[in-house]
């Protein structure tokens, strides 16, 4: 098992020049084109936050303290996971021509998509901190743990992205299934509501989702100012590595067959 993972990280590292350049290109494209540029990265989560806050306080009428921060701190990691997976879905198919010429790893574009989205994710933390400052929420030093919590999230995200991209080659329906699946996950994870609202018997099942504790612990360092639980951190990391291992195994098996399909 470690061999496969080490090879993967070593190969990814050997393409660092490409990854750096492609991230720069993606950012330049995104921010050069639209007139508001970087502002969109901030406005988008803020708009979502305003909508959710309105729905929660005036429609559903659940009163929660600092709901804006509560929601933003969880929806940002979710957005990272969701957009990376969905953007990667077609990455192998779309680059078929390139793959039939240059022997590059088929997951290279998934890595570059996830890296670009990671930068966007980091930029979107600026509005989160701004909202915390404006609403008078205490900014606890626990937010410095953020980079550590990012690691398992990053690993699980590229694993899911790889599985979806491979599946998309063999099954045309992957896109539709993934859309439904992502929608379901958005509501089944404690993003818009606190985990305390989930009844116990359902909670046991829902917490099997590896993202359940990950999103929780990222939110808690911002919202509660709570130290990450070391046990959960290593559990998350371990689970993420196991998922990556299986994703790589499936990916490797499919890789040789890919060119016959695309």
């Amino acid at each position, binding site marked *: 098992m470690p061999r496969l993972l080490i090879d993967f990280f070593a190969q990814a590292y050997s393409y660092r020049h490409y990854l750096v350049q492609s991230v720069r290109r993606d950012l330049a494209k995104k921010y050069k084109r639209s007139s508001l540029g970087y502002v969109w990265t901030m406005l988008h989560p803020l708009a979502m936050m305003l909508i959710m806050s309105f729905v929660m306080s005036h429609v559903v009428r659940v009163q929660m303290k600092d709901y804006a921060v509560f929601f933003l701190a969880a929806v940002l990691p979710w957005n990272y996971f969701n957009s990376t997976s969905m953007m990667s879905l077609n990455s192998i198919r779309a680059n078929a021509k390139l793959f039939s010429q240059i022997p590059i790893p088929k997951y290279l574009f998934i890595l570059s998509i996830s890296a670009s989205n990671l930068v966007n994710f980091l930029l979107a933390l600026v509005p989160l901190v701004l909202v915390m400052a404006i609403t008078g929420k205490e900014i606890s030093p626990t937010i410095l743990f953020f980079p550590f919590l990012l690691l398992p999230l990053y690993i699980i995200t590229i694993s899911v992205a790889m599985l979806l991209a491979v599946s998309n080659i063999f099954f045309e329906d992957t896109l539709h*299934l993934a859309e439904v699946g992502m929608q379901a996950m958005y509501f089944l994870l404690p993003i818009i509501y606190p985990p305390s609202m989930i009844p116990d018997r359902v909670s046991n099942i829902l917490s099997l989702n590896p993202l359940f504790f990950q999103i929780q612990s990222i939110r808690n360092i911002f919202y509660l100012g709570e130290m990450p639980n070391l046990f959960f951190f290593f559990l998350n990391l371990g689970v993420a590595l196991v998922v990556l291992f299986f994703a790589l195994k499936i990916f490797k098996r499919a890789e040789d067959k890919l060119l016959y399909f695309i």
Partner: protein
Amino acid sequence: MLSQSDINKVSVRADLDCKVGKDPMDSSLAVSVNNVTVSYRRYHQPASSLKESVIRIFKRRKTPRYSQFNALEDVSFSVKKGEIFAIIGSNGCGKSTLLKVLAGVLTPSAGKISACGSIASLIELGAGFDSELTAIENIFLHAALHRKPKKAVESKISKIIDFAELHDFADTPVKYYSSGMYARLGFAVAIDIDPDILLVDEILAVGDDRFQEKCKQAFRDFILRGKTIIWVTHNMGFVAEQAHRALLLQKGRVLYMGDPKEAVKLYLDPSYQTALA
């Protein structure tokens, strides 16, 4: 000659070993292909949807899902360093599959390929280009796909732009290029990778006569530096005049290998053409 560490930097293939010392490969050879077979599966119902797969499980696969089809069958040959090696044959004889196997993007179903040195292909010009980026940005990106850092390319930018004759358009996104400009840039970038073995697929229709002459000169320089070109083409005049040796394929098998003039003669022979029908 490149050292082994240079080779590792350029090529990704694990099976690309050049064991000249320990004798699996003759030191005068650039590529050696041994009993390579590539089987494609011809799916009776391709691009299956989930629904079809589920139905198929219940049907318990009474009908086979695919039939085997050998695009290449037991192909063996070797290419010497410093030669222009032509691969000819009619459409569908396996030329492109062979190039993909040589480029390392397709793993053969059976057989082994050893190559001494780095391999790059000039199959489709500009396949990796991002249309939103300028020529210079694309040059950097393309080099990065070959794991070359920006620093290694910076000094060569002006040479590449010179070769492609794109001085006035170096900062224009390539989507505004004419197809000729695009292909010229593609050619200049690919030749700049400067591999030990270059795979070419019928691309000398780039630009006008003058530019084509320039491409030919670039290939000549390439050969003079002791490097190797493997060329897939339908241009029989070129094969007879320029190639050192030629390989004639028929339905995925080697029909003839050796003297290019003889290969062209066999290719043009009515018996070769009728054997396909």
